[in-house]
């Protein structure tokens, strides 16, 4: 009986917590399909009385969402690909190649994880504006083409690679380039998947940098577009929630289906 009561208490607490945590997700989805009437009633409706897709069209007319979707996908895709490439090369050099000052070089990579982006945002803005790259794709992606996070994770993975396999590959005549791309990269797919998901989420969700480096609605990313929906003169919660739902589709999919990869990256010192 005591165990049953304890179990019941656990169930109730978990159910209450789940409702609290999931409700904003639910409301973002349900609200995107609610009519103006449902969203404007007081107290507000929690379940749509009638479903409508009009909010999506309204949001797309208020802000160039389709263009901003492409902008965000392009920026996040380029950043993810570039960070994977630079991290693979750097981690390989740190583990498999003769390198004087290996310790100091690794310390540089670690140091990049400690510098808050906000401490360097002003000079980066001035540099890229000075190069004429404000309000461009180059301006959006250039500062993020490399990072210590991916290198740190891959270095850990590469160091686990059995020495016998490497020696066997060398005896077979595999040079560094072939060993790296034909053997090492395929065998480290789980780590690479974790890095890719994590970097994509970070890039897709970026806010501060796109806010200051872009000026026009056509060049803004989706996250800035959401802010525009909220700041519109007649801010319509249905349009806002429709925009949110659109922005969430790729990241929700990644979190739901890629959760085990995300967990791999969590304790590698990354900061969201």
């Amino acid at each position, binding site marked *: 009986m005591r165990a049953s009561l304890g179990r019941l208490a656990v169930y109730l607490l978990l159910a209450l917590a*789940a409702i609290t945590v999931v409700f904003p997700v639910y409301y973002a989805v349900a609200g995107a399909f609610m009519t103006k009437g449902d969203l404007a009633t007081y107290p507000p409706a929690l379940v749509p009385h009638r479903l409508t897709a009009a909010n999506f069209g309204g949001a797309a007319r208020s802000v160039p969402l389709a263009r901003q979707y492409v902008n965000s996908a392009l920026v996040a895709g380029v950043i993810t690909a570039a960070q994977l490439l630079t991290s693979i090369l750097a981690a390989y050099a740190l583990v498999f*190649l003769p390198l004087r000052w290996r310790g100091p070089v690794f310390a540089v990579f670690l140091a990049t994880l400690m510098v808050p982006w*906000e401490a360097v945002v*002003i000079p980066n803005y001035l540099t890229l504006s000075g190069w004429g790259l404000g309000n461009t794709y180059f301006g959006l992606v250039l500062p993020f083409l490399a990072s210590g996070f991916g290198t740190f994770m891959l270095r850990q993975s590469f160091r*686990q690679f059995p020495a016998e396999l490497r020696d066997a590959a060398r005896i077979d005549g595999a040079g560094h380039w072939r060993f790296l791309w034909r053997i090492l990269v395929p065998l480290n797919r789980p780590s690479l998947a974790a890095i890719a998901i994590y970097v994509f989420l970070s890039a897709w969700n970026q806010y501060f940098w796109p806010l200051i480096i872009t000026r026009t609605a056509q060049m803004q990313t989706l996250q800035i577009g959401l802010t525009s929906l909220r700041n519109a003169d007649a801010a319509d919660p249905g349009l806002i929630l429709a925009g949110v739902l659109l922005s969430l589709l790729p990241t929700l999919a990644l979190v739901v289906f890629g959760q085990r990869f995300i967990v791999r990256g969590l304790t590698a010192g990354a900061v969201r």
Partner: protein
Amino acid sequence: MPRPPSSIRPQPSTGGAPIAEKALAWAYLLPSLAVFAVFLGYPLYRTLYLSTHGNDLFGAPTRYVGLQHYTELLGSAQFGRTLVTTALFVLLTVVPGVLGALALVLLLENRIRGVRLLRSAFALPFAFSVASASVVFGVFYNPATGVLNGLLSQAGLGPVDWLTDSHYALVSVAVTTVWLNLGYNVLVLSAGIGSIPPEITEAARLDGAAGWRLARSVTVPLLGPHLFFLVVVSTINALQSFGQINILTQGGPDGASRTLVYSVYEKAFAYGSSDFGAASAQAVVLLVVVLACTAVQFGVVERKVHYA
């Protein structure tokens, strides 16, 4: 399942290596190091440089002013209030964020049906960007049509101006931040619990430890390193929180939710501002505080935190 032991490749020494391989190492490192130099190293120098110079109306540095920006900060009542607000925001987000996640993962340790589904549900906030979470909570906080005031009215209570009342603005932003980061916190601690060897937990159960006693005596101590990591990361994350403040309150009302990072933005970029000298001085203060947190993490982790 502990990973089977495998031989760790000894790192190659540089002595006697062919010159081509040494050059290859630097070639492979060059892309990363170039990005770091241009977008982290040089900007750090320039932030320090700007913080010791005045600037014209367009932000271009003018004459050297030494520590004038810093002394002005130290003498500024507004800056003092900004620091207090920042510290309060850190407390309001880190304490409930870490303790809330800990409570959830401990509850999830009970063997009940639906645990996997629940764990996935608690991870959902991880998918939200700061912008998407902020605009959703902004809809909740709407004084006229928001869900929160709707609930209050159902309970017979009067409406609250969540974002425009100085008593509630900072707390409202903090609640948004706690929710936003809960998914990350739950995943970190779930991974921590997953890394506890099952035999330890089973041995404790056989000794009669269950429920609260198991959590207090075994699970929480073994989660020590992960909890400590989470506290430091959460603190740094709170110090760097910007989007939710910019979207929900713009540091208002009357500076009630202006944090250090928001103040940097306000001085440098908001409403056409370009006071890069003063903004850079505040950015340096932020840098020092964040580096201090990181130093604490590296210092304590090596010496004090209990390891499984």
